[in-house]
């Protein structure tokens, strides 16, 4: 009986060991793995047909709280090059990414921008704001960082990456201008953006909005009753017409603001759902970085009393809400 059992166990282990199925034939020269969609988009645009790009954190998922799964581990281990945002955006993945970095090139895109000078916002001591993509010119920096990193990894295609990056940057510059224009249509005393968490500081700085988030830089921090009360009286005093929810954050706190303002006789509405830390559905226009920002600025402008075009910059937005 004992012997049979032991034989079964040994057989089981041998079986599992022999199941190492090997790689599927490769269509692309190398494999790039990224975390958030905004970075996936850059790498896809810059690497073109040279790399198969796989993003780990999908639509509507909060990167601050995202925990990697077995599938992510496999993807990271098989990747040739890895890009992530950095500055603690992927809070729970930092350890894993650091371990992966021992054996292959891993780039923190926003930390590359940080090296370039004092672009990155630094709120409290040693606490950097990771939401760089909210300012399109920040993401132009990021595109350059990606192009340089890819050239470093694959020097013989450096000019190819540079050309792709330049083409993408041209599109981003258009987007940057559009954002500036539509946000400037908001009446001056209403340029105040209140959202579920503190993700919009870069947008505020770049396009002249005052920004307040209910939760802090990371969704890990909780908002107290005090914070909500302060925000409500701020909204009522300044007669702000709308606040915004985010696709990757619970709308509980924002609804509390609306109710609080209602109790003080101020009609506050939810201006729409913004893409803050995750993009829209894969394959849709909002599932690209350009579509995401187009959606955000168009919705913000409309809800705060500006006059943006009905369907956004390229007339591609779904009737947005």
């Amino acid at each position, binding site marked *: 009986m*004992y012997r049979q*059992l032991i034989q079964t*166990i040994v057989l*089981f*282990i041998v079986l*599992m*060991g022999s*199941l*190492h*199925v090997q790689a*599927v034939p490769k269509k692309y020269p190398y494999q790039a793995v990224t975390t958030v969609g905004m970075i996936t988009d850059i790498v896809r645009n810059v690497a073109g047909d040279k790399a198969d790009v796989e993003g780990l954190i*999908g639509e509507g998922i909060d990167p601050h709280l995202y*925990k*990697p*799964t*077995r*599938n*992510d*581990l*496999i993807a990271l*281990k098989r990747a040739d090059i890895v890009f992530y945002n950095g500055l603690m955006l992927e809070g729970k993945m930092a*350890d*894993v990414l650091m*371990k*992966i970095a021992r054996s292959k090139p891993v780039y923190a895109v926003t930390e590359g921008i940080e090296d370039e000078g004092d672009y990155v916002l630094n709120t409290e001591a040693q606490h950097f704001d990771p939401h760089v993509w909210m300012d399109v010119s920040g993401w132009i920096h990021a595109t350059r960082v990606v192009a340089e990193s890819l050239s470093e990894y694959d020097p013989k295609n450096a000019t190819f990456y540079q050309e792709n990056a330049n083409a993408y940057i041209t599109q981003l510059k258009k987007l940057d201008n559009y954002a500036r224009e539509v946000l400037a249509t908001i009446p001056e005393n209403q340029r105040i953006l209140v959202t579920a968490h503190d993700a919009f500081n870069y947008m505020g700085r770049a396009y002249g909005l005052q920004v307040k988030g209910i939760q802090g830089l990371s969704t890990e921090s909780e908002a107290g009753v005090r914070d909500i009360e302060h925000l409500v009286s701020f909204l009522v005093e300044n007669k702000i017409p709308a606040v915004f929810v985010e696709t990757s954050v619970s709308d509980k706190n924002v609804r509390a603001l609306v109710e609080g303002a209602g109790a003080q006789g101020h009609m506050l509405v939810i201006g729409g759902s913004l893409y803050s830390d995750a993009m829209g559905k894969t394959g849709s226009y909002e599932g690209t970085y350009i579509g995401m920002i187009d959606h955000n600025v168009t919705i913000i402008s409309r809800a705060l009393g500006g006059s943006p075009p009905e369907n956004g910059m390229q007339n591609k937005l779904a009737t947005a809400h």
Partner: protein
Amino acid sequence: MTWFVDDTWIVIIGALTAIACALPGCFLVLRQMSMMGDAISHAVLPGLAIAFLVTGERASFTMFIGAAVVGVLTAVFTQWISSLGKVDRGASMGIVFTTLFALGLLLIVQAADHVDLDPGCVLYGAIEMTTLDVAWEFQLGETWIEVPRAAMVLGSVALFNLIIVVAFFKELKISAFDPELATTQGINANFMHYLLMTQVAVTTVAAFEVVGSIIVIAMLVTPAATAHLLTDRLGLMLLLSAIIGALAAGLGHLLAIVIPPLIGFDGTTTSGMMAVTTGLLFVLAWLFAPRYGWISRLVSRKDVKSPFSGPLPSD
């Protein structure tokens, strides 16, 4: 579905966890102290916090010691309260671990709020990520084998538990079933009790730092209880519980890969699925066990006493 080297390692680590836990787990189930592992896994928090405050780094050996010491203290306090205060063991376990856990939370919030000590990262290791920490590499034929640190740690714990169980088999058995008989035979039943508790504390702490607490608590109790349904002999029960736990680890990981895509999800946690699988195996044993199973009891219509209502007849 594709199976990778990492998957094999995850299953091996899960199986080692299962074996390490099942051995002391059997004695816990027999002594009707199954929740001790759960209690210890919560109670160690102040130990972790104090060790962190003293050394200033996490995942260090000091933290392991701090946690293990508080783990043993949990057992000591539980024993005191239940013998002095006329409180039953389950309740005194509840008192001790909630108090210690709360103390740990206070310590973390008060003293360590500004530093990076998230109870989550201490309490809930992730078994999926263990293969990233390679402790030892060697060449076998043409392939390099990279042994994860977790496999080494849990392998050592399993071995440690095996040695103790083999060396003190008779003493552990007698003091589990009949402490008074043990004393008349010159065995220090008290010593055996604390030896077992130390074993549980060391196992729990070492294991949940690497693989997370859910799977540890599941592996400590469920495979042992399942084995208890299948046999009345202690030796066989120990062996069966280790096998059942290891089987649950392999099956659980397989299900974690296969099932979510079928219902349209992307992936799930392996440790959760391993724990669920131990539960499923228990249900199977509860239904089909040869003697104590629901079906065989129905068929034989004999009034067989449930094995959980009292100690086993010794073999």
